[in-house]
C-alpha cells in the first residue's frame, strides 16, 4: 500500500518540511569548534571545498577552505547554508512504518530490516526478481553509488535499477560516448582562462553553478567573447557579448545552421578533420539546407546573431563550449549534444590548452555516480552491461557467476511506467524524489499508489517517501567518508565530520545489513569506505572511467585526481585527447549527422504558449534539502511564472496575478512575474517545489529515444488568468508541498 497513510498535513507536522534558521547567537560552540573538517559542499557538480565546524558531534557552522584550488573559499548561498541540515528538526532519527489511518510510527531496526527482506522475498517469489526495483541518486558518493549498483544486481538480483542522473546528464553521456567513446568533460576548468570564445548553451551558470562564474569572468578579463544561448536573460547572459534567445526546442537547428556557416566560410580545421575524425561529410550533408532564414524561423533568433556567433566561433584560435540541461532535457537531447560536438570537431579545438568542450554535470556526484554502475545499462568503470567481456570482468570482481548478473533494466521513468502497468510491485529508493523531479507527476503519484511495498532510505522525508511503507533513516553527506567526482572529472575526498544522529545509520551500513540478510553478506564484507573504493578501483580498471591509480592518500595529497588514472604512478588526466587517441572503436572522434526535428509537443491553437522549466539559485533539485533551510526559502519562497510583458498584456495578466497554467497533463496556479528577460512566446517555472506548486504536474513524460531523458524543457501550455492576487498564506507555505 503506497498511498499516503494519513492526511498530508499531519505528515508535514511530523516530518516537515519546516524552515530552519541558525540561532541569532549561532549554534552552541560555533566559535570554539572541536574541529574543522575539510570536505565539500553536498550540492552541485562544482563540489566546492568547504570546512565544517564541528562541536560535540554536531555541525555548528562553516569556514571557507581557501586552499582548495577550484573555489579558493568561494561559495554560493546554498553552500553557505548547507551546514543547517545536520541540526535540522526534520531529520529522520528512527525507522518508521506506515500505519493506515495513523501515519508513520516508530519501529525497531530489527523489525524494519526483517520486514524489508521478507517483502522483497515475497514480491520476488510471486512476481519474479525484476518485479522489485531500486531507484538511486547521485548525491551519493562513488563508494555508495558503486555499492548500490552491486546491491541491486547481487543482493536484490534485479535488473531494474536506475538513478536520478536519468534526469540530468544522460543525454550528454550518450552523446559523448558516441562521439568520443568516453563520457567526461574534455578539460579542467583551468582551460577556460584563455579561451578566446566561450559558448554556454542551455546552462544558467550563475544560478546553478555559481562558483563557475568566476572562471568565465577570468576568461573575459583576458579578452574572451562570451556567447550565451538561453530563452531567458539569466544573470550570466545579462552581460554576455552575445545572447541568443533560442526558442525552447530550437537548439539543434541553431547548431546545425552554425555548422553550415563554418563550412560555407571554410572556418574548418581540415587537418584535424581528415586525420582524427570520421563522419564529417554525412554531418555536413545533414545541414546543407539549414540556411539563416530557415534557422531564424526554427530558433526564433535573429539571423544576424546566428551569423555573428558562427563567425566568432569559426575564427577563434582557442575556445570552450559548455552545455547543460537546457539543451539536454529534450526528446532530442542526444542530438543537441552531438550537434554541439560537431561544431567543436569541425574547428579541431579539443585536446589542446584552452580548447575545451563538455557538459556541466549537475549533481554533486553526477560524474562519478554515472560511471560506477547504478545506471540500468551500465557496470563499474562505465562498462556496458550488455557487453559479454564487461559482464565477465565485473562478475569476476564480484565473485559471482556471469549468468547470475542481471541484464539491462528499465530507465528511471520507464520503471515508474512499469509500476503503473503493475509489472513492478516493489520499490526501494535512496536519494531520489521522483514525485517532485519526474515529469507529469500526477502519473508518478498514481504509479506509487499501486506499489505493494515501498521502502525509502533517506535523511529527510521527501515527498515521494511520504508514500512509503517503511522509512529507513540514512546519512547526510557529512556523516560518511567517501569520494565524489566533480564536473571537471576531479575525484575528491568527502570526509566524515560527525556520526549519524539518533538511530540513523550510514547508508552503506543499511545496504550491507540488507545484503547480509538477503544471503550475500560475503560479497559486502567492507569495514570502511576505503575498502569499497579499493574494490571500485579494481572494478573500474581497464574501463573508460579508470580509477585504478587513484588512492585516498593520493587524493588528499593532490587535492583531487582527474580520471582516467590507470596506475598509481600516473598523475591523472586534467585534459583529455592531447594524444588524439579517442576511445571509439576506430580511435577517431565521430561526427554524427543531426537533422532537426520538432519537440514532442509543439504549440497549437489550444495550447499556444511554450512552457519551460529550470532552477533558481537558492534551491537545489527537488528541494528535499534546500526547502528546509529558512534563508534559502525566504530568498525565493514560491515558484513564479516568468512571463514577458507583451504576452501578459495579451492575456490581461498583471504582475503578481495568479495564473492557471494548463497542459495536457494537468494544471497548476502560479503568480505571474512580468519580466522582459524572457522570450515573448515562452513562460518559465522553476521546478523545486512539490504538491500543488509543482511545475512537474505540467511537464511531459516523453523521452529521448537514446538517453531516455524526459523533455522537461519544452511543452505546450494554456494560460488562464484568474485576475486575483496570490494570498500571503500560499506564498508562506508553498515549500511544504501540501
Amino acid at each position, binding site marked *: 500500500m503506497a498511498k499516503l497513510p494519513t492526511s498530508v498535513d499531519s505528515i508535514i507536522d511530523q516530518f516537515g518540511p519546516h524552515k530552519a534558521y541558525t540561532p541569532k547567537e549561532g549554534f552552541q560552540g560555533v566559535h570554539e569548534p572541536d574541529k574543522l573538517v575539510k570536505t565539500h559542499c553536498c550540492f552541485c557538480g562544482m563540489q566546492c571545498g568547504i570546512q565544517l565546524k564541528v562541536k560535540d558531534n554536531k555541525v555548528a557552522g562553516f569556514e571557507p577552505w581557501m586552499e582548495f584550488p577550484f573555489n579558493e573559499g568561494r561559495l554560493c548561498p546554498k553552500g553557505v547554508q548547507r551546514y543547517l541540515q545536520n541540526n535540522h528538526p526534520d531529520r529522520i532519527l528512527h525507522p518508521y512504518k506506515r500505519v493506515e489511518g495513523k501515519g508513520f510510527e516508530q519501529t525497531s531496526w530489527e523489525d524494519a530490516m526483517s520486514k524489508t527482506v521478507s517483502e522483497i522475498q515475497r514480491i520476488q517469489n510471486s512476481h519474479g526478481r525484476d518485479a522489485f526495483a531500486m531507484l538511486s541518486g547521485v548525491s551519493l558518493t562513488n563508494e555508495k553509488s558503486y555499492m548500490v549498483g552491486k546491491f541491486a544486481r547481487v543482493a536484490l538480483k534485479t535488473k531494474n535499477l536506475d538513478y536520478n542522473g536519468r534526469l540530468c546528464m544522460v543525454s550528454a553521456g550518450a552523446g559523448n560516448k558516441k562521439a568520443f567513446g568516453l563520457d567526461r568533460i574534455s578539460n579542467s576548468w583551468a582551460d577556460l582562462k584563455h579561451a578566446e570564445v566561450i559558448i554556454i548553451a542551455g546552462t544558467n551558470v550563475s544560478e546553478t553553478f555559481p562558483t563557475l562564474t568566476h572562471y568565465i569572468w*577570468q576568461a573575459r578579463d583576458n579578452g574572451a567573447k562570451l556567447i550565451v544561448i538561453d530563452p531567458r*536573460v539569466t544573470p550570466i547572459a545579462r552581460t554576455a557579448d552575445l545572447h541568443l534567445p533560442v526558442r525552447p526546442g530550437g537548439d539543434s537547428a541553431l547548431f546545425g545552421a552554425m555548422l553550415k556557416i563554418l563550412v560555407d566560410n571554410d572556418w574548418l580545421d581540415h587537418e584535424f578533420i581528415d586525420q582524427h575524425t570520421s563522419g564529417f561529410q554525412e554531418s555536413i550533408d545533414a545541414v546543407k539546407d539549414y540556411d539563416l532564414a530557415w534557422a531564424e524561423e526554427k530558433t526564433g533568433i535573429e539571423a544576424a546573431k546566428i551569423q555573428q556567433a558562427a563567425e566568432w566561433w569559426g575564427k577563434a584560435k582557442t575556445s570552450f563550449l559548455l552545455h547543460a540541461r537546457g539543451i539536454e532535457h529534450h526528446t532530442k537531447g542526444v542530438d543537441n549534444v552531438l550537434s554541439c560536438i560537431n561544431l567543436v570537431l569541425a574547428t579541431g579545438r579539443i585536446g589542446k590548452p584552452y580548447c575545451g568542450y563538455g557538459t556541466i554535470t549537475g549533481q554533486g556526484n553526477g560524474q562519478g555516480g554515472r560511471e560506477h554502475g547504478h545506471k540500468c545499462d551500465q557496470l563499474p568503470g562505465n562498462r556496458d552491461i550488455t557487453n559479454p567481456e564487461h559482464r565477465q570482468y565485473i562478475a569476476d570482481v564480484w565473485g559471482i557467476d556471469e549468468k547470475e548478473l542481471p541484464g539491462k533494466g528499465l530507465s528511471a521513468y520507464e520503471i515508474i511506467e512499469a509500476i503503473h502497468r503493475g509489472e513492478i510491485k516493489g520499490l526501494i529508493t535512496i536519494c531520489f524524489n521522483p514525485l517532485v523531479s519526474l515529469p507529469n507527476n500526477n502519473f508518478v503519484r498514481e504509479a506509487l499508489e499501486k506499489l505493494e511495498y515501498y521502502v525509502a532510505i533517506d535523511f529527510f522525508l521527501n515527498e515521494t517517501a511520504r508514500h512509503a511503507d517503511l522509512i529507513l533513516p540514512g546519512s547526510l553527506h557529512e556523516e560518511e567518508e567517501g569520494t565524489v567526482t566533480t564536473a571537471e572529472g576531479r575525484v575528491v575526498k568527502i570526509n566524515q565530520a560527525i556520526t549519524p544522529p539518533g538511530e540513523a545509520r550510514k547508508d552503506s551500513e543499511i545496504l550491507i545489513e540488507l545484503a547480509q540478510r538477503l544471503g550475500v553478506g560475503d560479497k559486502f564484507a567492507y569495514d570502511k569506505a576505503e575498502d569499497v573504493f579499493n574494490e571500485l578501483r579494481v572494478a573500474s580498471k581497464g574501463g573508460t572511467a579508470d580509477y585504478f591509480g587513484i588512492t585516498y592518500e593520493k587524493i588528499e595529497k593532490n587535492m583531487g585526481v582527474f580520471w582516467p588514472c590507470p596506475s598509481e604512478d600516473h598523475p591523472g588526466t586534467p585534459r583529455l585527447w592531447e594524444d588524439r587517441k579517442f576511445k571509439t572503436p576506430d580511435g577517431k572522434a565521430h561526427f554524427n549527422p543531426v537533422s532537426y526535428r520538432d519537440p514532442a509537443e509543439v504549440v497549437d491553437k489550444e495550447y499556444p504558449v511554450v512552457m519551460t522549466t529550470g532552477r533558481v539559485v537558492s534551491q537545489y533539485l527537488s528541494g528535499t534539502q534546500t526547502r528546509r533551510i529558512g534563508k534559502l526559502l525566504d530568498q525565493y519562497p514560491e515558484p513564479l511564472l516568468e512571463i514577458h510583458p507583451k504576452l501578459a498584456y495579451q492575456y490581461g495578466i498583471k504582475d503578481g496575478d495568479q495564473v492557471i497554467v494548463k497542459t495536457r497533463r494537468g494544471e497548476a496556479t502560479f503568480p505571474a512575474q512580468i519580466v522582459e528577460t524572457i522570450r515573448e512566446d515562452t513562460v518559465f517555472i522553476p521546478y523545486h517545489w512539490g504538491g500543488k506548486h509543482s511545475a512537474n504536474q505540467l511537464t511531459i513524460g516523453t523521452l529521448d529515444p537514446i538517453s531516455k531523458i524526459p523533455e522537461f524543457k519544452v511543452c505546450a501550455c494554456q494560460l488562464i488568468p484568474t485576475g486575483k492576487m496570490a494570498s500571503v498564506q500560499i506564498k508562506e507555505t508553498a515549500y511544504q508541498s501540501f
Partner: protein
Amino acid sequence: MQNPQYNQQMEFFIDMQRCIGCHACEMACAECETNGQESMIHIHYVERAVSVQTTVQVCMHCEDPVCANVCPADAITKDDFGVVHTANTSRCIGCSNCVLACPFGVPKKEEKAELMMKCNMCYDRTSAGKKPMCATVCPSQALFYGTREEIEKLRPNSTPVSKFLFGQEEVNTKVNIMMPKGSTELRIHP
C-alpha cells in the same frame, strides 16, 4: 599598532557587472559572531521587470565619514586603518542621524535593538590576515579583496574608482567600485 596582521595594502573592490544576485555574501556576512544572523551587506534588483541586474550595498568606509560626523553620541569612529566601525553599542542612542545622512544609504537601524548596525570590514577576520567573509565567498568575485596591483593585473578592462560626486559634494571612500577603463570618478547627477 594593535593588529600587526592587518595588511594596509589590501583593499575592497566591488564590480557590479559581475554581481549575479545570488545573496551568498549576505548569508556569509550574517554568520559573523557580532552580526547575530543579520547581514551588513545587501543585494537588490535594480528593476527586475526589465533586468536581472542587482546592486551591492555595503559600507564604503568614507575618508570623511558623514555618519560619524552627524552622530550626536560620538558612537561611530574611524580607525587608523580607515575602517569606519559600526556604532559602539554603549554609546549609540538609536537616533538614526547616520541612517539619514549616509550618501550610500548603508547604515540600518536595527529596530528591535535600537542600534545602528553596519559593516566593519570583518574586522575580526581582516585584522587576522583573512579576507572579509563576503569577498571570500562571492562566487563571481564581484566582491574582491586584495591589493591594487592584483586587481589591476587581473582585470585590465576596468579601473577602481573611489571618488563619488553627489552634485557638488565630493565623497572619497576606502572601498572602490570597478568602472570602465580610464574612469576616475562616479558622478551622481542631482
